[in-house]
């Protein structure tokens, strides 16, 4: 997870939280077509091909939680 020194370095400079930072770097800015791989805690979360915009960590985590629900298949 996030390095404490890294977070300490961010503190007090601007009014931002970790969530704000992640939301910004993943959702704001110029997109160039390309393939992207993002991993969290050593696990590859998302692999995207050409012309696909990266999903947010929040969305990815939500999908992960849904996938992990034990009775998901039974509800269909």
């Amino acid at each position: 997870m996030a390095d404490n020194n890294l977070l300490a370095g961010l503190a007090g400079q601007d009014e931002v939280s970790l969530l704000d930072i992640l939301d910004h770097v993943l959702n704001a800015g110029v997109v160039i077509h390309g393939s992207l791989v993002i991993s969290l805690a050593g696990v590859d979360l998302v692999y995207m091909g050409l012309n696909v915009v990266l999903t947010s960590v929040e969305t990815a985590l939500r999908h992960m939680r849904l996938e992990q629900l034990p009775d998901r298949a039974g509800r269909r």
Partner: protein
Amino acid sequence: MPLLAYCMMDATAMVEVPSAGVAGVRIEELQEFGLRCYFSRFESREHLSRIPAVESALAFHQVVQALFRQAALISFRFPTVLENQEELRQHLREHAPRYAKALTRLRHMVQMEINISMGQATGSGAEVASGREYLHQRRDQAAELKATSDKFFQATRPWVVAWRDRQIDGGMRCYALLHRDAVSCFQQAAQALSQSLPGTRLSGPWPPAEFLEVKDS
């Protein structure tokens, strides 16, 4: 050799570049078509994908913010990975006029943001019995979010050059474009209002990514 792109700025801007970027890798620059692009090279895409995402994202943010404190810039979305410098050059060749125009227009500007959470700010979350009730609730929530956005706009109006808001999953996001030297005044006014409105949060200053394109408003 794949590269991770950070941001671009006017080639004439004088800035001090951080010594290292994501995963401690050296930051290099490419100057073409009146723009200067910052990036780091990695051995392979696999190497890049093995670096924990949150730490990489924070390191990416630190590089961009360090440069943004010194000059106007346009950030790439993280993680923008290109095969080589030629691919980056090709992108600049195609889009340089648009980027240069935006950088000139936004030279002294920053973006502040206000997040309005649906649950707390609008008192929503109650169960509804029918589709009709649900639609009414949605309409009322949208109206309340807009009203909250308008309150912030009115409170910060003297410093706002442009204002945009849009509904997002779970609330509304407001974007204010202002001059760098107006940040402190804007923060004071927005914070004072935020304290009386639960579920609202201020963040920034950010590079003005929401205002890269000119819109009629």
